[in-house]
C-alpha cells in the first residue's frame, strides 16, 4: 500500500470513528504509540490494564516496557470484578475498517475480552497494514477467523466508538455498560 492511500484511508477511518464518538491516532512507530498513550488524559492515574500475556503478543508486546519507562503501571486483566471500571485498558485489533471507523477484536479468553468491555477508556492498537477500506474485508476476516480448528476465534466484535444509548428521549448518552471512550492507534 502506498503512503498516499494509507493516509487517505487513515483520514477516512478517523473521520468515521470520530463521527461515532471515538478517537483515532496515527503513529509512525510503537514508540510514538507509547508517547500518545502516556500523554493521554485517560492515563492521568498512570495505570492501564492489558490482556494476559500481552508482552508475548506480536508486534505489540514491546510497547509494555515503553509504557513502563513512561511511568505507567501495567496490570494484567484477571476476574471481571477487578477490571470493572478500571480507568484504562489496552488491547489489540485484528484489523480496522475505514468505511465505518471500526476495529475488529477477536479474543477467546474472558480476561482479554473484558479489557474492551468493562474499562472506562479502551485503547486499541492496530497495524496500518491491516487498515482496510470496506466492511467486505471484515467479512473475509470473519470467515478466516471462525474456521474450525485450534485457532478458531469464538468471540469476535466489530467495535465502533464508545458504548452509547439514546433510549431516553433520544438523548445521546455516551458510556452505558461499556467503555465511555474508545481510542484507536493505527501504527505503521
Amino acid at each position, binding site marked *: 500500500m502506498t503512503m498516499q492511500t494509507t493516509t487517505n484511508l487513515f483520514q477516512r477511518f478517523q473521520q468515521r470513528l470520530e463521527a*461515532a464518538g471515538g478517537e483515532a491516532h496515527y503513529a509512525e512507530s510503537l514508540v510514538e504509540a507509547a508517547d500518545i498513550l502516556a500523554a493521554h488524559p485517560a492515563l492521568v492515574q498512570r495505570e492501564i490494564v492489558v490482556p494476559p500475556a500481552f508482552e508475548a503478543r506480536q508486534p505489540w508486546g514491546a510497547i509494555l516496557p515503553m509504557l513502563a519507562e513512561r511511568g505507567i503501571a501495567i496490570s494484567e486483566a484477571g476476574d471481571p470484578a477487578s477490571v470493572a471500571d478500571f480507568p484504562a485498558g489496552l488491547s489489540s485489533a485484528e484489523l480496522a475498517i475505514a468505511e465505518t471507523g471500526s476495529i475488529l477484536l477477536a479474543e477467546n479468553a474472558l480476561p482479554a475480552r473484558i479489557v474492551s468491555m468493562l474499562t472506562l477508556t479502551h485503547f486499541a492498537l492496530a497495524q496500518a497494514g491491516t487498515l482496510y477500506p470496506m466492511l467486505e474485508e471484515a467479512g473475509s476476516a470473519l470467515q478466516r477467523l471462525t474456521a474450525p480448528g485450534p485457532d478458531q476465534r*469464538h468471540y469476535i466484535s466489530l467495535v*465502533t466508538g464508545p*458504548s452509547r*444509548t*439514546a433510549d431516553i428521549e433520544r438523548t445521546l448518552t455516551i458510556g*452505558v455498560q461499556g467503555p465511555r471512550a474508545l481510542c484507536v492507534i493505527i501504527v505503521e
Partner: protein
Amino acid sequence: MSTELTPLTPPREAQVENANPTNEEQPFDVRLEHALSDQHMHAALERFAPSWRDSRAGVFSYEEQEYGPDYSFQHMRSTLRQAKDYATEHQPELVARFKEMARAAGAIVFEARTAEEANRYIYDLCQRKGIDLVVKSKTMVSEETELNHYLEARQIRAVETDLGEWVAQLAHERPSHMVMPIIHKTRQQVGALLSEATGREISREDVAEQVAVIRVEHRKSFLNAGMGISGANALIAESGTVMMMTNEGNGRLVTSLPPVHVVMAGYDKLIGTFAETMTQLRLLARSATAQHITSYTTFITGPAIPGHEMHIVLVDNGRSEMRADPRFKDALRCIRCAACANICPPYAQVGGHAFGYIYSGAIGLVVTPFHHGIEAGAGPQSLCVSCNACETVCPVEIPLPGLILDVRSRVVEAKGLHWIKKLVFGAMARPRLFNVATRLISIAQFPVTRGSNFIRARNFGILGKLPLPYIRPMVKLASWHSLPAFASRPLRDRVKRQLERYERRDAIDRVLPDRVPANATSRLTVCYFAGCMTDRLYPEMGQAVIHVLQTCGVRVTFPLGQNCCGLPALNSGDRRDGAAMARQTIIMLEQALKESEADYILSASTSCVATIAQDYTRLFEDLDEQGWLRRARELAGKVVDFTSFLERMLAEGVQLPVRQENGEATIVTTYHDSCQSCNCLGLRKEARSIIRDALGLELREMPQADVCCGFGGSTSIEHGDVAERLLHNKLRNAESTGATILVADNPGCLMHMRGGVDVNGKKLRVLHLAQLVAERLE
C-alpha cells in the same frame, strides 16, 4: 425432574403488567384509547418521525456518494432481499449447515416448534443448573414467547439489561418500539421509575445521571447471573455464527460473563454467508437508527471459554406456516429494523402498543396473526392507512402494504365486514343501483348541505345532538372535516354534453393546431377513467382534466359504463365485492379501448391508477383466476396517470397557453404528495415541474409533503381520531408555507383536506392539479 408442570398463579408482577393499559392482554380498544390520550408519547413520536427520515436519507445518500451505486439503498436492499430469499428457500440446508458448524464449535442447538417448547427448554436448563437469576440483552423473540413471564411464574428472575427494556420492565410494560423500547416515556417518567426501583432519588431531568444508574445497578447482576440470554440479528450458516448488534455494551456482557449463554432466534434469522451479513449489518444500522454501524457488532461461534456453555434455541412458532405461504414467506426476510414503524403516519399517532401486538409497526401487523393468532392482529391492522410508505423504506423489499391487506381480508373472512361497509360496497358493486342511489342522495342531502358542496356538522342542528344511530357518527366525522356533498349532476351527465359539443366542432383536429407539434403525441387518444369520487362528488375536477387534455390536442373519450374500480372494497378487505368491481372495470375498459382505439386509459386519480395497474394483478394472482390475471396484466400496460402524462406531453414540446399574470399578486402554491402518487407510482418531480415550469407559479415546499393526509380510505371513518391528527398536521404544514393554493393529484386526499379546510375556516384553496392548470389557461 418432572416434565409436567402444574400451572402456577402468575406472580404479582405479571398481574400488574397485564392490568397495564399498554399490555396486549388488554383489548385493542383499551390500548388504543390509552395511546390516543398519551400526549407525551404522541409528541415524542411526532418529533422523532421527521428527524429519523432526514438522518436515514442522509446516511444512505452519504454512502452512495462516497462509494458509488453498489452502496446505494436500492442496490443493497435488492442484494439482501436475494440473500434472505435464498435462505428461506433453502432453509433446511442452511439449518443443517448452521447446526453442524455451531455444534462443531461447541454450541448446543435446540429446535423449538412452539413458544412453549422454547420457554420450557430454557426453564429446564435453569433447573438443571440451579440458576435463579438470568440477565438478558434485547431479544424480540423472548418477547414473542413471553419468556419473562414464563420464568418469573417459576421463580426465576429475568433482568433486562438494555436500558430501555429495563425501564419498560420496571414500568410493567412491553417495549412500544422494536429499536427504541421506551420512546413513549419522558425523562421525568424514567427518573420516577428509577428512583422507585433503586430506593434513592434519581434526577428527573438529567438523562446522563439516569443512564449512569444502570451501570451501577446491573453490574452485580452481570457478575452473579447464572445465565445470559441474548437474541440474534443473524445466524450465519457457513460458520455456525450468531451475530448480535448492540450499542450499549450490555449485549457483550450478557454473552460473556455468565457461564451459560442462551441465544433465542427465529429461523428467519438464518443467512448464508459473512459476505451477505456485511450487507445486512449496513442496512440494519442505517435503517434502524441512521448509524453507519452500531457500536458493537458481535460474532459468536460456540462457547469461547472452557466450562462455559452456549445454547442456541431456534424458534419456529408460526414461521413454518409463513414459509409455506407464497405471499407471507416474504415477511421472513425481516431484519427487525423498525423502519416501517418509523415512517408510518398512524404509528406516529398511537405508538407501538396499539399499532401492533408484540411486534409493532407494519411488520407487526403482518406477522402477528402467525405468532399470536388472527384475533390478536385484528385490531392493530385496522389502523393501517394503506399509504405504502413502509414499502419504500423496507431494507429487504417486503411488500408490506399488500400483506397488511391480506391480513385485513383474513380478518374480514373470520369476523365479517362491518354492516355499513357491507351495504355500501354491495351497492357500489351494482352500477345501476349505485347510480340511482347517488342521484337520490344528491337530492335528499339538501337539509344538511343547504346547497353547498359540504355536509356540515352544524347543519344537522338539534338532530346532531340526539343519540341517533347513523346520524351521530356522521355528525362526529363532519365535526372535524366537512363531508362532501354528492353533485346534483355527476361528471357522466356533464361530460356527455361537453364531448358532444367538441365532437360537433370537430375539435379533435382543430384544437389549437399551432401549439400542437407535428409528432405522434399530438394525435393521442385517451380513454378517461374518472373514478367514482370525481364522477359523483367532484365533476368539476373531471371537466378540468378533459379541458386540459383537449387543450394539449389530445382526443378524450369517456366510457359511460364506468363505475368504481373496487379500491374502497379491496382496501377494506372485502375481496368479494372488490373482485366483482375489478372484473366489471376490466370488461368496461377493454371494450372502451376497442371502440375508441384509445392509446391509453388515463385517470386523474392516482389511487385508481394504482388499483388498476398494480392491485388487480395481485388480486387475480391470489384468487388464482388466470384468465382475469392475463387481462388485468394487459390492461395495466395501458393505464397512465394524468400528472405524468401531462408532464411527458410538455416535455415532448406541447405548449400550454398559460395566462400571463397582469398585475395580479404572485400566486403561491404548495404541493401535497398523495401516497399513491409518490409511494406507489413513484411520482415526485412531475407535478412540481408542471406547477413551476409550465404554469410559472411559485411553489413552496411544505414540511413532510409526502406524509399521508390521513384519508386512508375507510380508515378515516373507522379511526377518526387518528385521521384527524394526520389532517391537522397536513393543513398546519401547508399553511406554514404561506401558500394560498394547496395542490394534489388524488381526489381522496383533496376530499379529506377540503373537509378540514372548510371546518377550520382556513384560507386555502384545495385544488386538483388539473384544476390549477385549467384555471391558468388562456
